[in-house]
C-alpha cells in the first residue's frame, strides 16, 4: 500500500483532511455548511438550486456506491445535459462537484 498525501484545510471553521488534489479523505468530516466556501474556492460565486441538486446527488451516489459518478453517469441520473453541467461546474463537473460534495475522486478514471 502506498502512503497517501494528507493535507489539512480549514473549511467553515472545521479542520478537514484532503489529498493533494483537494479531494476529501474522510467524507464524514464534510457538512452542507461547508458547501458555499468549497464552491467559492472552485470559482463558483453563486450557488443555484441546480448546484445543490447535483451536489446532493453526488453525495447520495457516493453513499450508495462508494464512489461519485463520472460526468456521463451524473448527467444520466440528474437529467442535466453534460453541456449544462460544464456551465454549472466549469473545469470538469464530476471532479469539481466531488470536491464540493466532500467525497473522494470519482473512480470512473481507472
Amino acid at each position, binding site marked *: *500500500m*502506498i502512503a497517501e498525501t494528507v493535507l489539512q484545510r480549514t473549511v467553515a471553521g472545521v479542520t478537514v483532511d484532503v489529498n493533494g488534489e483537494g479531494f476529501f479523505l474522510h467524507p464524514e468530516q464534510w457538512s452542507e455548511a461547508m458547501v458555499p466556501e468549497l464552491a467559492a474556492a472552485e470559482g463558483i460565486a453563486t450557488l443555484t438550486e441546480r448546484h445543490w441538486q447535483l451536489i446532493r446527488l453526488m453525495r447520495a451516489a457516493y453513499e450508495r456506491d462508494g464512489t461519485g459518478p463520472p460526468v456521463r453517469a451524473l448527467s444520466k441520473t440528474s437529467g442535466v445535459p453534460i453541456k449544462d453541467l460544464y456551465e454549472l461546474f466549469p473545469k470538469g463537473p464530476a471532479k469539481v462537484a466531488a470536491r464540493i460534495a466532500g467525497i473522494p475522486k470519482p473512480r470512473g478514471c*481507472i
Partner: protein
Amino acid sequence: MTRRIVVLGAGTGGTLAANRLRRMLPDSVDITVVDQDDVHVYQPGLLFVPFGLAHAEDLVRPRRRQLHDGIDFREVGIDRVDLDGDTVHLQDGDSLHYDVLVVATGATLLPEETPGMTGPAWNESVFTFYSLDGARALQKRLAGFESGRLVVNVVDMPVKCPVAPLEFCFLADWFLREKGVRERVDITYVTPLDGAFTKPVASRALGGMLEQKGVEVVTEFNTGEVGDGRLIGYDGREVPFDLAVVVPLHGGAAYVGRSPGLGDELNFVPTDEHTLQSRARPNVFALGDAANVPISKAGSVTHFEGEVLSENVRRFLAGEPLDAAYDGHANCFVETGFHKALLIDFNYDTEPLPGHFPARMGLPLLKESHLNHLGKLMFQWFYWHTLLPGRDIPGIGSAMPHGGKTLPAEPTEAVR
C-alpha cells in the same frame, strides 16, 4: 435435482467461466451459454491490425468451439432478464429459467452517443480500432497517410484496455518512422484524464515515453462533439485533425438497460469487487467488462476474476459462504513499438510499479524490453489454449504477486 446456470455472453469471461464451471460441477448442473453471434474476437490483436502487423481474419474463431462438451450454446439475442422470475427472455421468444445467472456480456461501443462522430466522416477521417471492421478500415487509411495531424482520442472513461490508445500512439510513431514520413505527421494524444494513465507511477513512465516519441498530450479534454476536422470539447477547446483515431464511449449491453434492477446508468452491472456477486440478486454474478468493479476493463482482469467467480458460484450452489476473493489483479503488456513492450502488474491497492514479474528473476516491469514484446505476441496462443479453456497459466495466479516489485521512494497518492 437438476439445476441450471445460464451464462450470458461467450466472450473471454463467459467462455472461461462456463468451462471452469463445467469441470467443477457434476452433470446434474446444466450450463447454458447465450450469445447473439458465433464470432469470438481476440480483442488484444485489434491494436495490430491498422499497422498490418495482424490480419483481422486470424483474430476470429467460432464461439461455440471454445466451449467444452456438456455446455449448451444458444446463438440468439437477449431481450431482457427478469430478476424476480429468475428468467432470461430471448429475442426468439424463448426463455431460460436459471438457478444462477452469470453476466459476461462485456462492454458495447457507443460512437453514436457523441454528436458528429458517426456522420459522413466515420471510416473516412474518423476511425476506431476497437472493432474488427474499424481496425480493417483504419489499416487502409493509414497505409496512405503520409502527412498531417493524427489525433488519438479517448472520449471518456470507462473504456476497455485503457493502455491500448497509448500503445496505438507508440506504434503509430514506429510505423510512420519506418515509412520515413514521421516528421511530416503531428501525433496528438487527447485524453479526459489528467495524465497519460490514472495510476501515478505508470502515468509518469508512460507520459515520459509519449514525450520522448514526440507525441503531444492534451489532458482533461472531454469530447462533446466531432465537427468538421476537429474535436470539440465541452469546455470549448478544439483539437483539429486530418485523421482521428477515437476510442468511443462505452456502455454495458443494451439488454441490461431493459432488465429492471440489473444495471447502473451506463448498463454495467453493480458487482461486489471481491466476491463478484452482483448487487442485484444473490444468484446473479458478473465478471469482465460487464461488471462495474473499480479496475481496468481488460482480459487479464477477466481471467483472474474467472477463477474467483467459478469458485463462488460453486459455493453458492452448495449453500456455502462466498469466501473466494478477487484482489483486483490486472496484468498488461504495453506494446511500445520497435519490437519492444513493457509490462504492468497491479491490483485494487497497489499501483503499477517497477521491478520484475512474477518474482525478482522474472520479466521487467514498467520498463521496455524485447522479452515483453515476445510475451505479448505469445499471449495469443495462451489465450485460445489455456485462458479460454479455463486452465491456470503456470506461475500466474489470480492474486497479485508482491515479490519483485520496487516501492517508490517518495509517497504518492493512493490508487483510489
